[in-house]
């Protein structure tokens, strides 16, 4: 018989096995973007599940595939968690057919979230382009919930058109802790809000760099402009955090898809400070 003496005493954890979660609610936030409220089927997991804002899950449907999706609800929420998914390809299209009562499968949480604890006492600026609001919404809600611990909150959200502005029904709540500004690339006649690129919102709010952290998530093109503007405004690299997107398969640093020069987006990221990626030109593509 094969000799088993070499097997490790501590049982190995099989990272690739997902857990089942039930869809409690679904709603369409914008064309092709759905918001899911979920709960784990396993009561122990439901109870003990914990994560940080900015972390993601590997979400899958059996027979369809698996993809990284950020958790968009705050860690403070008990019993359930939420995802916000944009239809993009195989899995995300299939997710859009889910109804309450259906299940999906998740493993995680993975990656490094926003270091909110370190930001205690500071003003926070959230800059979100499109679906990038999903991970930030977790942090915003968290900050809103722990209102006393932070200074003023500013949410800047840009979208393709007014239809694509996300979580609009929550802006009032957020505004109680600070400011929410939105801007769109283009709008139908009658739109009274801002039109233009998101940096225009920065100009509008003209934030002071002192004692402020910036949390950013959005498409790569947005990063460059926003970071350029923040630099002009005098923000320090250590205070700016971005959440990166890369092709990902395993979520645990084994499949190699998400590497950016010397870090794994899935393990060291997706949230990184500009300080951490300084000099890595390929990080901001």
């Amino acid at each position, binding site marked *: 018989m094969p*000799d088993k003496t070499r*097997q490790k005493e501590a049982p190995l954890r099989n990272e*690739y096995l997902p857990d089942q979660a039930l869809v409690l609610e679904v709603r369409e936030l914008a064309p092709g973007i759905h918001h899911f409220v979920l709960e784990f089927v396993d009561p122990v997991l439901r109870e003990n599940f914990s994560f940080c804002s900015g972390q993601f899950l590997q979400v899958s449907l*059996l027979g369809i595939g698996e993809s990284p999706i950020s958790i968009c609800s705050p860690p403070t929420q008990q019993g359930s968690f939420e995802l916000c998914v944009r239809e993009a390809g195989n899995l995300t299209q299939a997710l859009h057919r889910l109804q309450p009562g259906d299940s999906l499968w998740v493993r995680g949480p993975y990656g490094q979230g926003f270091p909110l604890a370190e930001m205690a006492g500071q003003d926070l600026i959230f800059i979100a382009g499109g679906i990038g609001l999903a991970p930030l919404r977790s942090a915003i809600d968290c900050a809103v919930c722990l209102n006393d611990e932070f200074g003023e909150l500013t949410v800047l959200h840009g979208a393709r058109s007014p239809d694509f502005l996300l979580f609009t029904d929550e802006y009032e709540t957020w505004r109680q802790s600070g400011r929410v500004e939105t801007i769109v690339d283009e709008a139908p006649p009658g739109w009274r809000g801002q039109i233009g690129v998101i940096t225009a919102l920065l100009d509008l709010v003209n934030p002071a760099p002192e004692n402020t952290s910036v949390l950013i998530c959005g498409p790569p093109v947005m990063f460059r402009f926003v970071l350029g503007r923040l630099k002009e405004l005098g923000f320090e690299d250590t205070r700016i955090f971005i959440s990166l997107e890369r*092709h990902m398969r395993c979520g645990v640093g*084994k499949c*190699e898809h998400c590497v950016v020069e010397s870090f794994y987006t899935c*393990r060291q990221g997706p949230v990184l400070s500009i300080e951490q990626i300084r000099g890595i030109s390929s990080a901001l593509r």
Partner: protein
Amino acid sequence: MAYGYDAHPALRRWLLELAADYRVLVPAEKGGNRIFQEVGTTDALVFGLAQDRTVLPAKKAFLPPEEMLFEFSAGRILPAMPLDDTIVFGLHVCELSADRLLTANMTHDRPDFHYLVRRNGGIIAGVSCRRTSGCFCEKTGHDQIVPGDFDLFLDLDGCPGWDSAGTGEQCGGGAKTSVAQPRLIAGSAAGRKLAASAPFPLENATGAIRAPVAAASSKTWPLDELPARIRDSFGATIWDDLAARCLGCGNCTIVCPLCYCFYTRDETGLAPETGRRLRLWDSCQLLAFARVAGGHNFRESRSERIWYRFSHKFMRMQETLGHAGCSGCGACFHFCPANIDPQQVIADVLEVTDSA
């Protein structure tokens, strides 16, 4: 090519005996190639241990090109249980060294269950190396291996007849025992146990086993400096020159003992409730590797992809695991239709970063 081992009746018998309890892989010939094959699956049972590289390295035994992560049926997940009964026989020093590093990679941080179940339950046995054309393990620091990083080692030093004469007789195979006996060196308890039934004398390891020195003297690389040098070389024209030659065919990474990237895929039958999630070898040299839904590609150009491959080996693995992610086996060079030679690439990197 004649391999001495075929004719060694005792070795043959022993491996066949082991094959009753284990899946035993040995390098054997198939259609003009050497590949790790399962003892018992070929009639010929040709063992060729000492020369020439196999097409796929031993990694295929522990990280199969396609493997099931789990099955599912009617909304239930049935985990795959990888088999842990593999013996791979006949790895050269660089391959043992690569195996050690690959295992370290799969162990650190979040361990890879499927690989480690197979690997930890498996047994690897090395064999003396006669060097293969285009190999350069002394440059990458993979030219020695310490006991503990292998289970068994078949030491053929002093047995030249084994891999040239094709009879095995000159070396403990028959009458002419005047030449030194092959000996087994045990590196682990499992190896020692296995060796109990072996037809060769067993010795306890005394120190590191080294690969023979390269014929042409070659300078070793400044491995500690390489991460910085590779980083600095990003965007240098050497990568564009390589990109002009590279076909992007993926051969190099598939044959590399230290490449392990994968993608996943779900598969279902005509009844969609049942199916499997698979993981399959991928290659960073393929265009779609870093592409995301919607079409944006984070490594659009071939030159970036090639840089990425070398950065993984000489920068990232060196930085995270303390060893170069290249064993120096030369397989990628051997199988590259465009003749891209990592020795030349590193020489070029050193040169362009010297002048910088």
